[in-house]
């Protein structure tokens, strides 16, 4: 069920990227898509009724969730934040030059 939800979120992001004309909305669409993939990744590592994978005394045989996808998601989130910061910075520069966020307007002005 939750797998299906992450797929729906991915499609929402994709739709947003493909149809919006506003630069910031396109950026949001990209972010939603990345988060959907991250969500999917965390979900894969989850075991029903599992606990955090910290091995202490008396806990050796407990049911752990898979830690590797979580580590991967952390890395992916850090990277996507760096990309997002750069994207927004570029958006601001474009706004300063053209005074608009609309990509069709920008294409017209660019000539």
């Amino acid at each position: 069920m939750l797998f299906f939800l992450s797929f729906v979120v991915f499609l929402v992001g994709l739709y947003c990227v493909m149809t919006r004309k506003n630069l910031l909305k396109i950026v949001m669409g990209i972010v939603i898509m990345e988060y959907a993939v991250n969500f999917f990744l965390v979900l894969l590592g989850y075991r029903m009724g599992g606990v955090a994978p910290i091995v202490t005394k008396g806990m050796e045989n407990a049911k752990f969730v898979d830690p590797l996808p979580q580590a991967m998601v952390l890395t992916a989130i850090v990277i996507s934040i760096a990309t997002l910061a750069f994207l927004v910075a570029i958006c601001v520069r474009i706004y300063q030059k053209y005074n608009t966020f609309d990509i069709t307007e920008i294409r017209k002005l660019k000539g």
Partner: protein
Amino acid sequence: MNNLVILIVIIPLIASFFCLIDKYIPHLQLAQIVSIGATLICMALLAVLFPPIFRGDVVSYSVGGWKEPLGISLHMDGFAWISSCMSMVVALFALIFAWAEKEHGNLFYFVFLIFIAGMQGVTLTGDIFNMFVFFEIFSIASYILIAYEGKTKSILASFNYLLISSLGMGFFLLGIVILYQHTGVLSLNDIANLMSKAGNSDFTLNLALICFVVGIGIKAAFIPLHIWLPDAHAFAPHPVSAILSGIAIKVSFLAIWRIILLFQAFDIEHIFLWVGAFTAFLGVIWAVAQVDSKKLLAYHSISQIGFIVVSFGVGRPLALDASYYHLLNHAFFKSLLFLCIGSVIYATGQRHIHKLGALRKKMPTVFFSFLVGMLAICGIPPFDGYASKALISISLNKHPVVYFFIFLSSIITVTSFLKLSGIFTGKPNKEKTSFISYKIPAKMRLSLVALSIICLATGIAPHFWIRTLDTFVTGRKLDIIPTVYSLHQLVATLLMVGLGFALYLFIRSSPGKKTLRFIRGFRLGLNNSILLVVVTFLIFILLSWIVAKGFVQF
């Protein structure tokens, strides 16, 4: 010996730190010296690694001492070694060129070195998630480098590239997720082993591979995924254009190459045969229509990637060698051409083809280097392009339709370079341009001449080079090497030049100019290009399903 492998990634990163402190030590040019020094040290390390690699060994390094299924390993085999050498050589001359331009601050060199480190990492890593991280490192560095000059066009180009490429990286991550769910490991070799045990006609594996092909393919820029490339390569600073066209797209394509051959996904490999044919043909048609000199070269990068992809799609050892040979040659002559046009723009401040002319007498060094690059890309003997193009045609002997497309693209390549050479031979320009001077700095001249010599050196004695590549790339599988200088190939070259010249006369006429203007007006917006990426993904899934079910035999 094993520690040297990781040093190749780490030394540019350490050097990039010294570029940052350059600001506090004026007049020393620390950033420039350190960055060139770092590339030279890396080349020395590669030279030390040469003997074991030549014997066919694989030098591996496990990061943090954890062995493969748990930790991350870097593998240096012949394939990675030669790719690494190629990127270092081109990066060195691009850096020397950037130094001569004197327009870039220390931050430029900082980002440039991170870019180099990222590409080395992609080439060397043996872990799929680590490959993702290195891809992001070099992509973020390349976005910054493209937008570095701060002009509006370059910022917009960087924005387009960033959006399309983040979408691609999303697909790439999805592919990693699918593979991890299926096998539970992330190291490439282990995944391949587990997959071959499970049998590889699995739909899930195919889905993951297509995620990789589309995700990385956006950086490798074959045709449905090429939309970001012309703007990004044309409006970047000149040394950055050279390194983007020369190496960045190659490194991405080599990652696809490694993944596909490792997972033995021959169905997908055969799709590349047709993708490559269309890439070569459509790319060159757009190229000939351009009036911006750097944009023309950028479209040529797409077209030449088509040549490489076609030969990769054939899949036999000879074809793989031919593909790699062309890839290597293209890295050298395309960066040479970008640097030549870069120095013309540096001297004259003008990039429109029809507004430049008669520079042959004023800039003889640039003219001769351009001539070398032009003859190489058109495939005229004795330059390197001839040998690799002839090998590609030999390897295509069972696919006549694809060969026809490739031959057509070679003809139009000749035409478009006759058009571009108008800036050296044509009539002098009447308009006044705000030129600095026609003299270019000695360092610029050094990098142009050195790259021309490399172009000539890799073209002379093609047998020696094919034998060497056979050792490194496919592991000594070739028994006989076909003769490159056969009568058949030479006649084909002569025919190609003749037809190219005839086509050049056509595009000078008024109906020809009208056609070109029509082609030039055909461009896609951002929304549509993202839609195209998604559609490509679906088409690839459909194609691989059709091929896997055996409905179509290639």
